[in-house]
């Protein structure tokens, strides 16, 4: 029996369990709930069902952990001072903005 066949057989058994046992959801349903779970928007009962799936499903547990780590990576990579985009702005850009403003003195909003 190959490892791949073994994994497929296990998934088939797990799929049948998840679809038929009470309070169980499939991995696909779990995936649909993920965003609301992470943002704390799931009602208590749905949260319990979600967390039950998390306990019985190794794949979704690993997946959720990697998904959360990805969110952290995305947030931190821009916040990192060393990789932050330079905030020093070329002087000619500042000049261009100020000149554009001066060249259209009539363009201010009415009623100021």
């Amino acid at each position, binding site marked *: 029996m190959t490892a791949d066949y073994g994994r497929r057989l296990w998934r088939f058994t797990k799929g049948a369990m998840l679809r038929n046992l009470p309070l169980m959801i499939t*991995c696909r349903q779990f995936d649909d709930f993920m965003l609301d779970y992470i943002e704390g928007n799931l009602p208590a009962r749905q949260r319990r069902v979600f967390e039950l799936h998390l306990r019985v499903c*190794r794949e979704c547990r690993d*997946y959720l952990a*990697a998904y959360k*780590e990805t969110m952290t990576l995305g947030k931190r990579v821009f916040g990192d001072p060393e990789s932050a985009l330079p905030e020093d702005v070329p002087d000619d850009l*500042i000049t261009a*903005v100020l000149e*554009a403003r001066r060249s259209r003195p009539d363009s201010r909003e009415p009623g100021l």
Partner: protein
Amino acid sequence: MHDRLTSFEANAEDEELLAGLRAGSDRHADRFVRTHIGWMRAVALRLLKDDGLADDCVQEALIKALRSIGKFEGRSKLKTWLHRITVNQALMKLRSRKRLEEDLIDPLLPDFDENACRIEAPWTQRVSAEQILSTAQQRRLVLSKINELPDNYRIILMLRDIEEMDTAEVADCLGIAEGNVKVRLHRARAALKKLLEPLLRGDVL
């Protein structure tokens, strides 16, 4: 909104600056532009990934802000108001540059079998974000992977996770339903997870 944006509190100095701007003072306009152009350009550059486009965007955003400063009523913080103008201007630039691709994300979405079971290779280890970001080379790699996301998903990930706007604000900026924002955000994060997997699994270390 972002911490460093919300830390801007309206104070006596800003009131004086706003009063000067409304009176059309050049000196105040100069100070206003110099105070805000740096972070606004950084926002534009994150969204547009191009120096020239970001410069155009920030120039247009500042001119728009200066012309409509009379409409700023102080209900939101000045920096929040400017952030929104910058984001809107960047989105207009993206739209005019090209149609946002729609279908390229499918191969990056999670895999399920015919029983709706997740197909996920076993994880023997998971490298932490902190560890991954500890070298400049890997930080560049993470940034390049974010930039590989199709624009219509990347933008939502950027606005929600990086610019820290809420779902309603993003929906409003893009003119789409909140449900659509949530679906696209989830897909964008899932796609990024797949793109970053070699790093997260430690295969690149």
